[in-house]
């Protein structure tokens, strides 16, 4: 029994050194992030005299400019995410299962796109698909047209195409990780037994890729809802999303309360999608 005294105590009783070291970074984040966040919520629901007031909140909620922006945001986000999943899946399948010389380098190059500013793609698209861009100039020259025939850039679809380019690497990354775990022998066996590639993809590869697709897809939903640079750079009058509306209300109109109300809704939407992503990524074991 005397020996028991020198053995370490149970984990719960063990003296944990430095538990309070978490305080400085947590306090810094609380001051610089969570405190401003609370003030946004407060401004959204309080009037100038400091009384609780939901009338303004309700008014914005029913305003046409808000509903339009909300609809645009959701349409763009869902369409871009669907595009990212398709593009990511096609690129991933080829890179993983029909590799070519240099495919590793290409995969890394696509991965680098994650670190580049998103508005780069929009700027490039104006040179490619804008009314005076390469595609229109070429088509006008070849078919001797008077007006530019291709006109999708300054619409919802221009934003969607730009976002597909920018965000499909976020689907590709977890997908390639999942594909690397697929048993190559299983595919060759199926192939030798006469299964066509399409059937192998559907029955062997896709089931293994579902968690990665859900994780990548929910991350795309989150990022496209929050996207600002692409929409700002396209600068189409008809394409206003929630982040752009917050910017224009606060900076161009100095309507801070309206901006805060829209921000509260945007943040709630984003946090919901963040929860979805964490859940999906947790299931994938990421």
């Amino acid at each position, binding site marked *: 029994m005397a020996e028991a005294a020198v053995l370490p105590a149970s984990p719960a009783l063990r003296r944990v*050194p*430095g*538990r309070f*070291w*978490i305080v*400085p*970074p*947590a306090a810094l*984040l609380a001051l*610089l*992030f*969570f405190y*401003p*966040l609370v003030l946004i919520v407060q*401004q959204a629901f309080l009037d100038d005299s400091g009384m609780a007031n939901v009338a303004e909140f309700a008014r914005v909620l029913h305003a046409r400019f808000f509903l339009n922006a909300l609809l645009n945001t959701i349409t763009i986000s869902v369409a871009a995410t669907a595009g990212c999943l398709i*593009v990511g899946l*096609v*690129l991933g*399948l*080829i*890179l993983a*299962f*029909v*590799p070519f010389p240099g495919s590793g380098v*290409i995969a890394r190059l696509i991965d*680098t796109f994650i*670190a*580049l*500013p998103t*508005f*780069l793609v929009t*700027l*490039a*698209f104006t*040179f490619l698909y804008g009314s005076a861009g*390469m595609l229109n100039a070429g088509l006008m*020259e070849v078919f001797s047209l008077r007006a530019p025939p291709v006109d999708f850039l300054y619409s919802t679809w221009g934003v969607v195409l730009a976002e*597909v*380019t920018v965000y*499909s690497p976020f689907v590709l990354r977890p997908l390639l990780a999942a594909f690397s775990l697929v048993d190559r022998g299983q*595919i060759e066996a199926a192939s030798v037994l006469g299964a066509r590639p399409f059937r*192998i993809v559907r029955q062997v590869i896709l089931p293994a890729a579902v968690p990665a697709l859900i994780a990548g897809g929910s991350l795309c939903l*989150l990022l496209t809802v*929050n996207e600002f*640079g692409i929409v*700002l*750079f396209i*600068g189409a009058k008809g394409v206003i999303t*929630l*982040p752009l509306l*917050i*910017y224009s209300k606060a*900076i161009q109109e100095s309507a801070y309360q309206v901006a805060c109300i829209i*921000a509260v809704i*945007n*943040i709630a939407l*984003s*946090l919901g999608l*963040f929860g979805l*992503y964490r859940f999906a990524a947790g299931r994938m074991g990421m």
Partner: protein
Amino acid sequence: MLVWSRPGRMLIWAVFALLFGVLFLAPLAVILLSSLAEQWNGVLPSGLTIEHYSNVVRGAAWNAVNASLITGFLASALALVSGTWAALALRVQDATLARVLGVLFFIPSAVPSVSVGLGLLVAFSHPPLLLNGTIAIVMVAHFVLISAFTFGNVSAGLARLSPDFEQVASSLGARPAYRLWHVTLPLLAPYLVAAFGLSFALSMGELGATVMVYPPGWVTLPVSIFSLTDRGDVFAGAALTMVLVAVTLVLLLGLERVAGRQTRS
């Protein structure tokens, strides 16, 4: 190999080349080309010039490069210290608290950057905490937005670290501070370098929060590119974008090599 027939493979590779070319290669190539263009009214530019680049090294464009580099360096350094600190300190908390705090440290990455800027404007526009109109508010905005990424990278690194080294150091009598400085941090170094590179790159490209809070004298590269293209000066905007891409790639690849060397040694 999924497809065995030669024509089948060729067809699939053609699909890949088309997708990759249209989505990833063409945008980069066209930005590069337009940054060198004199005039561009037809399918191709009418002439090439390096004038847009020579303008970068003076005047407003050079100030923007400076502002972005200084902001990126300071915000990333602060995010690295605070993210590493938080990740290390979370290891000694009990599991539930560590999980909750871990999510809280991640949340800034989930909130739209414009709202982060709006929050800073609302919170820090009055004394005693008057940051609005100063350079500091830009640094703070960048720090908040990238802190989640540094925290995530360092946490991932810590999770992969074998606890053996630290336990051996402890059992040999190393004090916690000595162990941290001479064992844990050197082992973490590759992850720290990678985290710093990624957050620097993210800061260089940050637009949403910056455009909300920047004071007149501190225009970063993305804001400067936006005002150039908004004014119709697209070629100068393209040249600045290429500078931004080049700096970002040098940072990422350079720091990746440093990190790789550390892992090998």
